[in-house]
C-alpha cells in the first residue's frame, strides 16, 4: 500500500493517509491506524525488539511514527510481576500484575498514549497540544508537552482529585476546569477542535494517540516470554485500551512473534459508571450512556468513545465484563496493596475487585494465566482510602512509652 501506516475508517474502510483527523467524512465513524504488516515483518522481530531501548520505543516499527523518528521520553516497559499472594487469596495461580502505576513520567498508562500522540503533534506541526481528561491524561500531556517544548491547554471536569490538578499545573500547563462531567468536557473539546488549530490528543490526534496503548499488549507478551496469557482484565473508561491490547496480540500472532492463542478479554468498570459492562451483561448492541457517580473518576466516562468496540472485543473473545461499587473499589485498592505491595489508584481498585468477582463467578479458572492491568498510581487518589486509616497519636521517643503502647495493642488484639 506504499505507506507503512495510515488512517482507515473502522466502519467503511476508506483510507485517509496521515493527517490530524479522527473520523471519516463519509460515514462519520472513527478512524484507526492500519499498518503494512508484511513490510514490518522483517523489522518487527523478537531479536530487534529485545535489542531496543527498555521503553515503548522498542516497538516503534508498529507505532504510527514518521520515518526516522526517535522517541526520547522513556515511557512504558513497566513491570509484569507474578501476584502469588493475591492469587492465593483469590484462588487463582498464574495471576500477574501489569503495573503501569509506575509508568514514566506521570505514573499512569496515559504516558504511553501521549508519547505517540505528541510524536503526531510534532509531525503535523502543532504548537499547542490539548486534551479533555479525567486526570491521568492531563498529567501525561502536561509533562510531555513541557519536555517537548509545546504549549499545553488542558480541559478537565472541575471536581477532579487535587493531586491530578496540581500534577497538571506543576508542568506549566494551562488548565481549564469545566463545571460539568467528562462527557460534557469531551463534547466541548470536539467543538473547540473544530475551531482552533490545536492538537487535541484524544480528538483530532486520537487515532495516533490510541496506538500507544498497544504497547501494553506487546509488553505483556514479551514479559511472559513471548507468549500470550489465557485471560486479561482491563479497566474501561473510554474503552480504547482493551481494543488496542487485542490489536497488539493480533499483530504479534500475525507476525509470528507468539503462538496463536485465543485470549479472553475481561472489562472492569465501576458500578457508578458502567455503560460498557452494562451493555455486555444485558447483551445490548447499542450502549446506553450514563451520568457517572463513582469515586473512580479516571473511569468516569458515561458515553465511552470506544465502548461499542470494547463490547465486541469482550464478546468475540469469550470474555465478560463486571463492575463493582465504591466500597469494593476501596477494598480492592487495599487488597492489592496488602498482598502485592502495589498502591493503585481507584481504577486499580476496580480492576482488582472485578478480577476477584470474575474468579468467584468462574469466568476465570484457577489454573489459567491471567494478567490484571493496573493503569494508575494510588498516590493520585489518596482521598479514596484516607478515611480507612486513623492517624495514631504521636508518642514520646522513649523505649518505655513504646513498650507500653505495644502492650496495649497486644492486649487489644487478645481482647478481640
Amino acid at each position, binding site marked *: 500500500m506504499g505507506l507503512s501506516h495510515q488512517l482507515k475508517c473502522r466502519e467503511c474502510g476508506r483510507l485517509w493517509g496521515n493527517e490530524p483527523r479522527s473520523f471519516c467524512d463519509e460515514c462519520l465513524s*472513527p478512524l484507526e491506524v492500519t499498518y503494512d504488516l508484511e513490510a514490518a515483518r522483517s523489522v518487527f522481530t523478537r531479536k530487534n525488539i529485545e535489542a531496543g531501548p527498555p521503553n515503548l520505543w522498542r516497538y516503534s516499527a508498529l507505532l504510527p511514527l514518521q520515518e526516522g523518528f526517535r522517541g526520547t521520553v522513556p515511557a512504558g516497559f513497566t513491570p509484569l510481576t507474578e501476584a502469588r499472594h493475591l492469587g492465593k487469596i483469590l484462588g487463582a495461580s498464574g495471576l500477574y500484575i501489569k503495573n503501569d502505576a509506575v509508568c514514566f513520567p506521570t505514573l499512569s498508562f496515559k504516558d504511553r498514549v501521549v508519547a505517540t500522540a505528541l510524536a503526531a503533534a510534532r509531525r503535523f506541526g502543532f504548537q499547542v497540544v490539548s486534551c479533555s481528561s479525567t486526570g491521568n491524561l492531563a498529567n501525561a500531556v502536561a509533562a510531555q508537552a513541557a519536555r517537548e517544548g509545546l504549549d499545553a*491547554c488542558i480541559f478537565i471536569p472541575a471536581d477532579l482529585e487535587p493531586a491530578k490538578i496540581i500534577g497538571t499545573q506543576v508542568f506549566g500547563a494551562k488548565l481549564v476546569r469545566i463545571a460539568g462531567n467528562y462527557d460534557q468536557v469531551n463534547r466541548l*473539546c470536539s*467543538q473547540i*477542535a*473544530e475551531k482552533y488549530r490545536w492538537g487535541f490528543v484524544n480528538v483530532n490526534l486520537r487515532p495516533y494517540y490510541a496506538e500507544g496503548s498497544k504497547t501494553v499488549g506487546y509488553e505483556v507478551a514479551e514479559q511472559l516470554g513471548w507468549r500470550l496469557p489465557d485471560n486479561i482484565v482491563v479497566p474501561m473508561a473510554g474503552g480504547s485500551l482493551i481494543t488496542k491490547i487485542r490489536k497488539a496480540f493480533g499483530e504479534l500472532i500475525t507476525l509470528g512473534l507468539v503462538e496463536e492463542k485465543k485470549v479472553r478479554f475481561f472489562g472492569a468498570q465501576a458500578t457508578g459508571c458502567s455503560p460498557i459492562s452494562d451493555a455486555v451483561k444485558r447483551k445490548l448492541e447499542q450502549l446506553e*450512556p450514563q451520568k457517572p457517580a463513582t469515586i473512580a473518576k479516571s473511569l468516569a466516562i458515561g*458515553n465511552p468513545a470506544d465502548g461499542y468496540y470494547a463490547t465486541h472485543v469482550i464478546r468475540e473473545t469469550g470474555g465478560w465484563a463486571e463492575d463493582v461499587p465504591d466500597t469494593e473499589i476501596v477494598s480492592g485498592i487495599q487488597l492489592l496493596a496488602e498482598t502485592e505491595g502495589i498502591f493503585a489508584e481507584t481504577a486499580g481498585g476496580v480492576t482488582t475487585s472485578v478480577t476477584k468477582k470474575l474468579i468467584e463467578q468462574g469466568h476465570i479458572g484457577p489454573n489459567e494465566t491471567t494478567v490484571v492491568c493496573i493503569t494508575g498510581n494510588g498516590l493520585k487518589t489518596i482521598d479514596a482510602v484516607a478515611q480507612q486509616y486513623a492517624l495514631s497519636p504521636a508518642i514520646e521517643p522513649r523505649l518505655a512509652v513504646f513498650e507500653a503502647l505495644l502492650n496495649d495493642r497486644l492486649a487489644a488484639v487478645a481482647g478481640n
Partner: protein
Amino acid sequence: MKITVEIPTALRRFTEGVQTIECSSTTLPELLGEIEARFPAITRHLRDDTGQIRRFINIYVNEEDIRFLGGNEYQFREGDRVLVVPSIAGGAPLSAGSTTRPAPV
C-alpha cells in the same frame, strides 16, 4: 416554533456551507427528515444502509445528550439549540475555517 441546528464542519459540504439552520420540527426523527428534505445529499452521511441514524453521531440539545432527554421521544422547545457531533471519539479534521490561536494564558 423555531429551533436552531448547528452543522459540524464535516457535513457543511452538504449544506452549501451553511453552519446553522433554523428548523421547526418537534422531534428528532422529524428534524432529520426536515434537514434531509432541504439538503438531500446529507442523507447517506447521517443514516446507514438500513435508514438508521449512524452509530457514531451524537445529538445534543442545549449541551445535553438527547438520549438523556428521551431520545426520539423528546419534544423540542422554542429556542432549543441542537448540536450534531460526529463520533465523540474525536472532533473535526483541520479545515479552512480553523484558526490558529495560542493557548489561553
